């Protein structure tokens, strides 16, 4: 067992740091979050992604022939650690790089890879995800958006919901029903890559409890998707989709990001008074701070464990199965603690630091729903990992 980085790793780390110093405008480090979900923040993320892409650092481990960096997993980890430490903005094409790309690389044809991957990395084409429907949330296999084959096209009719960033999307990962009668239902689902400029698509932003509109309703009225944009075989889309969900893993960068947030909470506790004394002197707050710190550290260590297993060529270790379950609930505890320290300021509208915490506090409630609710994830652990019957 060894938790140290090798000299080559450290050399790469220095390279990343130096590059960040030259390419990341200082104010960006915090500005993006303050901008919230807006056109401005999206444009900042897009500009940042372009700079990273030029350096070969979007999709660092993806094959060079499709515009990736051809780097190692270890380098990817160091890169995301350093980005988090520098508080660099996120990239614009989160879903493209996080989900669409890996799925297309695993399941796509050669033409699809050549067509889509480079533009995912450069940010030229922003991706969104159209899985959920009004009657198909946790029970995703119940989806009804109907696709009927018409020559070289599928004609799609139906409604999607909670589609994040569909308002910015150029392309969409779309799950549709191609066989309405088959049982079990998941055997009649097909995976399509839909151009969002196709006639018949209407996107209506939904206002979230944060006040922002990250996600949308999406109405599909006779939308024609070429059969060549099908990922995998007809009626086999469920298996591709399950692959996609497996790519939604929390990484090391995220672990470092949470540590930064934790440090902020410590500073907040030091300067905020509760009942006449600094919050950090309050023994209940101290216990909660410690618990959050321990959980942040565990998240980092779990990522190391996954990384170490992957480097040895092993499949996902047990810790990977619950990483999202773990951090989503941890983030709720952390943001609740910050709100508690701030007290009434955390619920008053306005601007400034308190509002940032207010936003994080509200946004964290979505974490245990999106990408598989905590209940569904506990079912998955119970049934698939521990083998307890349904």
């Amino acid at each position, binding site marked *: *067992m060894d938790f140290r980085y090798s000299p080559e790793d450290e050399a790469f780390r220095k390279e990343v740091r130096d590059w960040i110093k030259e390419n990341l405008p200082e104010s960006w480090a915090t500005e993006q979050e303050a901008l919230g979900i807006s056109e401005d923040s999206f444009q900042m993320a897009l500009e940042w992604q372009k700079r990273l892409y030029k350096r070969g650092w979007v999709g660092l481990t993806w094959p060079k022939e499709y515009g990736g960096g051809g780097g190692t997993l270890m380098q990817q980890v160091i890169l995301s650690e350093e980005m988090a430490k520098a508080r660099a903005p996120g990239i614009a094409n989160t879903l493209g790089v996080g989900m669409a790309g890996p799925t297309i690389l695993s399941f796509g044809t050669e033409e699809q890879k050549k067509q889509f991957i480079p533009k995912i990395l450069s940010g030229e084409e922003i991706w969104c995800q159209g899985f959920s429907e009004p009657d198909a949330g946790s029970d995703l296999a119940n989806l009804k958006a109907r696709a009927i084959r018409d020559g070289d096209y599928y004609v799609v009719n139906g409604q999607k919901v909670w589609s994040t960033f569909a308002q910015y999307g150029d392309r969409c990962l779309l799950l549709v029903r191609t066989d309405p009668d088959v049982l079990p239902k998941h055997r009649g689902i097909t995976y399509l890559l839909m151009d969002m400029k196709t006639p018949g698509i209407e996107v209506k932003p939904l206002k979230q409890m944060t006040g922002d509109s990250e996600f949308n309703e999406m109405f599909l009225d006779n939308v024609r998707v070429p059969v060549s944009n099908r990922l995998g075989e007809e009626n086999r889309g469920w298996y591709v989709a399950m692959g996609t969900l497996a790519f939604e893993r929390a990484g090391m960068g995220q672990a470092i990001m949470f540590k930064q947030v934790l440090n902020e909470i*410590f500073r907040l506790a030091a300067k905020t008074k509760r009942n006449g004394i600094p919050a950090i002197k309050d023994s209940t707050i101290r216990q909660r701070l410690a618990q959050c710190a321990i959980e942040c550290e565990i998240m980092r260590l*779990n990522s190391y*464990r996954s990384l170490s297993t992957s480097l040895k060529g092993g499949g996902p270790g047990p810790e990977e199965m619950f990483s999202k379950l773990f951090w989503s609930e941890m983030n709720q505890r952390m943001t609740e603690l910050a709100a508690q320290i701030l007290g009434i300021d955390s619920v008053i509208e306005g601007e400034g630091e308190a509002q940032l915490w207010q936003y994080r506090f509200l946004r964290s409630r979505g974490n245990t729903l999106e990408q598989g609710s905590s209940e569904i994830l506990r*079912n998955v652990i119970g049934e698939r990992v521990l083998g307890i*019957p349904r």
Partner: protein
Amino acid sequence: MEFTLNEEQQMLKGIARDFLENRCPKAHVRDMLTDEKGYSPELWQDMAELGWQGLMLPEEYGGTGGDFVDMVVLIEEMGRALLPGPFIPTVVYGGVAILQAGTSEKKNELLPRIAQGELSLTLALQESSERFDAEGVAAEAVEKEDHYILSGTKILVPYAHVADYILCVCRSRSSSDAEDGISLFLVDAEGEGISCITRTTFDGRKLCDVKLGEVKVSKANLLGEPHGCWPLVKRLVDHGSVAMCAEAIGGAQMAMEMSISYAKERIQFGRPIGTNQAIKHKCANMFVDVECGRSIMYWAAWAVDEGVPEASLAVPMAKSWCCDTYRRVAADSIQVHGGIGFTWDHDIPLYFKRAKTLEYTFGDCDYQREIVVRELERQLASG
């Protein structure tokens, strides 16, 4: 970066599991609940034959030259089997102290005997103040020519009643800094002036109050620098705390496995109880907590072994998480088992009791969390 068990460690784990399933079944654990010694000398000898007491000792002293991470792998299995006895006090406190701070005579004299299973040692740190820091050390050591005179009372000393030597932490010089003036003595447990009252915990472990009544100890039995031993004591406590984490994770793993099996087998309302999410999700939570515990426990073991600065955070973090986990998993295991899990003859209560006893050793989870915050405050203040 390497965060998986190597081949030898996996082998050790397998051998330890087989041996302990065979030699330390629950019937043995129950026998020891009322045994005066609280452990079996025959089993102790057989463990020595497998090289366990010498696992961390260099070959020149009859050991196998392993490291602390190897030891933690072994202790996890001991926790799973609920092995009673003075293994951790002897090997982790005694062995590490002599190896790190003993003179070459002491090493040559004692380490081979530890490896051969001939000696049992323990650490006497706590006193009536029940503190775990240097301020809690009041027992005095007064220098007299070629020896020291030790007086005071140590409490909760594990297995002192069967120890050959007791490592006594004493104040040998007064100073405004509590961590200055601490010495560590290797005291013959049979020596004049020592008296011992044994108490038994509800899981059959022995904790002794050791009275030092003007005990004469030769200067040759000083371990490490006189007056400057607090860092060494701290290292022993760190090693011990991580050993507790390993016991906790091993025990929690077993309680969890029993619960999962029961959730699959026990039929109520015509189906396995595990089909109910109230039960299934409890099992899922156990799994998450135990695996997280394993991550942080191995990190702490590595940090302590390497002596890197991270250890000051890793140890209290691991202790808090692992002991919380053990307690929670064992409690939920009783719930999953229903009435049978509440009976004296069922094994789950043995785990529940062990979990609670372990938590108190070197400070409960609240205490560990307080240490974590202090350390983080210190780190943030120094940038």
